[in-house]
């Protein structure tokens, strides 16, 4: 098998994924910069506005993402140990976590929107500046994070299918590793989003 693929370079593929992760970090970095400056300008408003967010849902989503990060990391070990069944179970748990996160987010956003707390609403335009900016940042940051979560879940879904088909196995698992790296990135960003948005009271 190895002799037929002279161009295979797993280390290179992983290096490529890492460099892509750097770009993602700076993509969110731009938003965190805006957040830092706006918070610096309107500390009181940010303090009060963040009370509108539900810390319980935020904490729950944090735990869900941490668990899913662990199961992805474990699934790589399982593939390396040729334990296909274990790898499948671990990845299914990860995807289940992604679904729980999405459902939580649906209710959380739905609640905010039903209160007219979204950018551009009539109520929003009458609030204090810091409130407007806080909720704009809240939706922008969690929205972009959500998009990354969905992309990550799709990559891991593909990886799961390839494990079932035997295309990812103990010799070839760089796709799963890269999918895992992307998933950890999603987790990393949430690790900062959670305290900055929910816990600044």
């Amino acid at each position, binding site marked *: 098998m190895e002799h037929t693929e002279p161009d295979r370079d797993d280390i290179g593929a992983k290096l*490529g994924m890492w460099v892509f992760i750097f*770009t993602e970090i*700076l993509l969110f*970095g*731009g938003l965190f910069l805006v957040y830092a400056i*706006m918070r610096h300008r309107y500390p009181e408003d940010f303090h009060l506005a963040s009370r509108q967010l539900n810390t319980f849902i935020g904490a729950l989503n944090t735990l869900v993402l941490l668990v899913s990060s662990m199961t992805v990391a474990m699934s790589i070990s399982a593939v390396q140990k040729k334990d296909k069944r274990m790898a499948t179970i671990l990845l299914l748990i990860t995807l289940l976590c992604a679904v729980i996160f999405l459902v939580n987010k649906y209710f959380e956003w739905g609640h905010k929107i039903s209160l007219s707390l979204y950018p551009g609403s009539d109520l929003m335009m009458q609030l*204090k500046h810091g409130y*407007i900016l806080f909720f704009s940042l809240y939706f922008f940051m969690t929205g972009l994070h959500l998009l990354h979560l969905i992309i990550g879940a799709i990559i891991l879904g593909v990886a799961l299918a390839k494990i079932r088909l035997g295309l990812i196995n103990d010799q070839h698992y760089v796709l799963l590793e890269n999918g895992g790296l992307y998933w950890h990135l999603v987790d990393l960003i949430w690790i900062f989003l959670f305290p900055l948005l929910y816990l600044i009271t």
Partner: protein
Amino acid sequence: MTEESYPIAHPSYLVDTGKRKGIKAWLTTCDHKRIALLYLWSIMVFFIIGAILGETMRTELFRPGQQFYGPQTYNAIFTLHGLIMIFLIVIPGLTVVFGNFVMPIMIGANDVAFPRLNLFSWYLYILGAAVVVVSQFAGSGPPDTGWTFYAPYSTQTHTNVIAAVSGAFILGFSSILTGINFIVTIHRLRTPKMTFFKMPLLPWAVYATAWIQVLATPIIGITLLMIIGERVFRIGFFDPALGGDPILYQHLFWIYSHPAVYIMILPAMGVITEIIPTFSQRRIFGYKAIAFSSLAIAGVGYFVWGHHMFTSGMSKEAIWVFSLLTFLVAVPSAIKVFNWVTTMYKGSIDLKPPMLYAMAFIFLFTIGGLTGLVQGALATDIQVHDTSFIVAHFHYIIFGGVGFAFLGGLHYWYPKMFGRLYNIRTANIAWGFLFTGFNLLYFPQFVIGLEGMPRRYFDYLPQFTLSQQISTVGGYLLGIGLIIMIVNLFRKSGEKAPDNPWGGKTLEWQLPSPPPEENFSTPPNVSDFPYDYD
């Protein structure tokens, strides 16, 4: 074409060997050399459009008052001229053409690390370009913000900003993917004996460029998304009425767009560094200094963005810091100029077209660089801000620097790319027109800029008429030079090129011209130093 003369075992990369033929083979190719040519053709087309737009602006400015189009059209045209020239030509330009064609060969690789991703980057580039073009015709009129999309105007104007911004976003994505590809290529695919310090200097420059592409472009990506959010959802980040800060937009924009200047100029410097030792037949002077100054420019260049904002209302302390950093970044650039000139000293200089372009580059880049320091100094910047002095300065860097390096590189590697020679005399004449026309066009803009001629104005006071007319004549000479050059390069009658027409030492000159589809059947031997002329 001379492909018939090569043995069937190693047909040139220009011959279709796969199942697909003709245009289908080109549009599905993963060969880095073909992708480089795909980029070259697209860039040539856009460059001709951008140049024609520029010439119409010069014609409009031939006399004070309105000649044949009004202010709104003028605003739309300089916006489109800027968008095309910056986002479609000079930012990707040298990286995607020479980085793709020569860099893998120079490091002894058969292709880039991710060939399919490389082709995908080209498609993204074309898609982004198409969206920018559509923004001109669809919706509520062509954007009139200038290529900088400054808020709050860009969030309020009724023209079609969203499409133009989306186009720039897609182009940025293409640029990021190319950067990732090249970083991994240079780390992983160097031929076994080639350590980093045996690598030619163009790959060094491409490597430094790729890091800026990867680390700066996402910032403009998110900023452009914010502009869209601002227009669609009124998120208010840059809208003072909602508590936002327009200066924050300028920060975010220049955090990318200043490093973008180094994305343009670093590979240009890399190309010049290849041309000068070859045509001086001399070892490059200070190899390590040039390699490290590329990294230093990339590193320090990331932190000087604030010098675009001295008059925007930034704090005095920030202005002071950014001014200092700006002066610092001039040091590694000057190191390179010193090394090029020293390499030429006592060399046997051969004034072939690539060398003429390289020498023009040094001259024009030095003028552009020194006038840049005029703007980096606080007091003088207040005087020249938003005048045609700025226009002259960045054209000296971007056209005189990047553009001339691109043309120099094109004349240098043309025999390798196509296996044919061009007419050297005609190429020299074209260079003469370009060099004269360029200086006539932009030098007067320094003078009237100091006298107070604002940039981006379609009209001017009568006292500037003479200078503006010299500029316009220079613009026409430049256009004539471009036409002569393009005709000379692309008529189908050059004689067959030898493998190493200029006596170069880097690996690409050890391959046939044009190279076979598989560059090296065995990893090539590498000498201890890439420029061993002595």
